């Protein structure tokens, strides 16, 4: 595979369909080694399908996967000996204790020293309840155990699908610290999540997919710096005039009409240029009644994914407008 040096995980042209529905449509992921990679996308975008392909649970229709610098094809199951994974909900024998579950899980796949079971139980904060049956565990405790199971073989690459599900705030902080510590040890962590705020504080690099394709990938700071915006609010009847005023002045930038009824406009420029926007509008006799500036992964996500989930995937749409009131309408007046 070309151009995959230094990558812990790479997919090229990955395709997978379920009947007539194309779940992955030529997905190209490049996950650098030693980072926490946030894998984002709306419901039905193909995140879980990707996770399943990467863990050998399903087979891609086309494309290639490279794990830790080596091709991962059908039958290359031993490549997974260096991978830890939590795909969808954690799964265990309900009648066994946490310790027994880990012991039986360790009997499959790569060899695991018995002391490692105690280490991961300790890491997950489950030592006190390790002998309790899993059927008596709360959802959060099962999630902790799932993460412990993923860490069982001390993996070089960790694939976690919505790992924060069911965790309490302390659990989320502990998980974040653990994953950051793993990345600092040179391990690679790929986290699929819809908790954008969590990814924003944890990830070094993000990849955003929509409709089975990668729509943006790169270092988080770089992406966010490109996503700097200034939002201004004018009288609704002055929206057209404001657009006419700003469009020529910010020809190289994007100017988006966010909410005509409320009079919000979004200019994609650095926050320190907010004053400039205000001045131009005032010079044209248009007075700004509200102004916001900043960078936000959520805004980037919504913009790149169209702010909507795949039809029929159960995401709430149309309840009082867009998810946070800041999504674009897609009606761009300048590019």
């Amino acid at each position, binding site marked *: 595979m070309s151009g995959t040096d230094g990558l812990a995980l790479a997919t090229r042209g990955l395709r997978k369909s379920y009947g007539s529905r194309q779940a992955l449509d030529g997905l190209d992921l490049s996950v650098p080694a030693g980072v926490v990679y946030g894998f984002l996308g709306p419901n039905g975008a193909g995140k879980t399908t990707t996770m399943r392909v990467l863990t050998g*649970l399903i087979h891609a229709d086309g494309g290639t996967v490279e794990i830790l610098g080596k091709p991962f094809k059908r039958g290359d199951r031993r490549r997974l000996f260096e991978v830890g994974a939590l795909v*969808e909900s954690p799964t265990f*024998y309900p009648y*066994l204790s946490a310790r027994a579950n880990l012991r039986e899980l360790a009997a499959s796949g790569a060899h695991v020293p018995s002391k490692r079971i105690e280490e991961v139980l300790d890491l997950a904060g489950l030592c006190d309840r390790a002998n309790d049956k899993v059927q008596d565990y709360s959802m959060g405790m099962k999630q902790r155990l799932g993460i412990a199971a993923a860490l069982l073989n001390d993996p070089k690459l960790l694939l976690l699908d919505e790992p924060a599900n069911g965790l309490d705030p302390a659990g989320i902080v502990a998980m974040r610290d653990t994953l950051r510590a793993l990345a600092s040890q040179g391990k690679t962590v790929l986290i699929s999540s819809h908790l954008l705020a969590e990814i924003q504080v944890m990830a070094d690099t993000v990849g955003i997919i929509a409709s089975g394709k990668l729509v943006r990938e790169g270092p988080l700071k770089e992406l966010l710096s490109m996503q700097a915006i200034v939002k201004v609010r004018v009288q609704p009847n002055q929206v057209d005039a404001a657009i006419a005023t700003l469009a020529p002045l910010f020809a190289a930038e994007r100017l988006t009409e966010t909410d005509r009824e409320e009079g919000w406009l979004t200019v994609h420029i650095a926050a320190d240029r907010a004053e400039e926007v205000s001045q131009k509008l005032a010079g044209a006799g248009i007075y700004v009644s509200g102004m916001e500036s900043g960078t936000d992964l959520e805004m980037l996500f919504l913009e790149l994914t169209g702010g909507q989930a795949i039809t029929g995937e159960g995401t709430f749409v149309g309840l009082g407008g867009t998810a946070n009131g800041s999504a674009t309408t897609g009606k761009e007046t300048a590019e």
Partner: protein
Amino acid sequence: MRLFFSGLRKLVRRPATWVTVGLLVGLLALIIIAVGATANGRTVRANGTEAKLLVTFPGAYDRILQFITGLGGLFAVIYGAAIAGSEWSWGTLKSAVARGESRVRYMLISYVSIAVMIGFGLLLTFAVGVVAAIIGAHLANVSTSGLGDSATLSDLPGRLLKGWVAVVEEGALGFTIATLARSQLAGIGAGIAFYFGEGFASIFLPDIVKYLPFSVANASLVTGTSSAGMFAGGASALPADQAQVLVIVWLIGALIVAAVFSDRAEIAG
């Protein structure tokens, strides 16, 4: 080997194992003792066979084994289906596959563990059945002098082995059906339906049904003193030696189907 021992540990700790063995042992003991306690006053078969035969040694050995392989066969179908189905329903197969475990190896070794547990259950149930028959014999005032019949005892290990293979084959069918259904409940339901469906069909299609898995399992154990029960198929039942070969064919075939399906299946959920 660690996968095999892990499979055994999981089965030993699983409540379903002990519920299944407990039910079989309890039913067997209850029936034998009840028959012994009431045998003096009645006959239970229209053909005049004395109920006392069930508690009369050495023939009792054969009848106990027949009971175990008959009802035990149904229990084995349910047990095999429960174990295989739960691997899909609980998602534990998914966890093993995601760790790089071979699907075929995992499924086949899981079944080897089940086969060992079936052997343990068969021996335990047989032992309890013999004790129950001795108690029944005392209650019915029947002599137990045939208990040590040397010809029967020397033949017993071979009979137990054949019984074990037959029950293991029936368990493999439940295991495979649940694997195909990817569900514990669907597997158990389909396994039971298949079991009774074959027995029912043997009334109308004996020449075909005699080759089917439950019929051959029963026919493989038929001796001069026993019959193939609900799967008898009248005069159409296969000779025991032919049936034993078909039992092996069905066993291997069922496990191949389970292994191939597991290898090719897309695991989700």
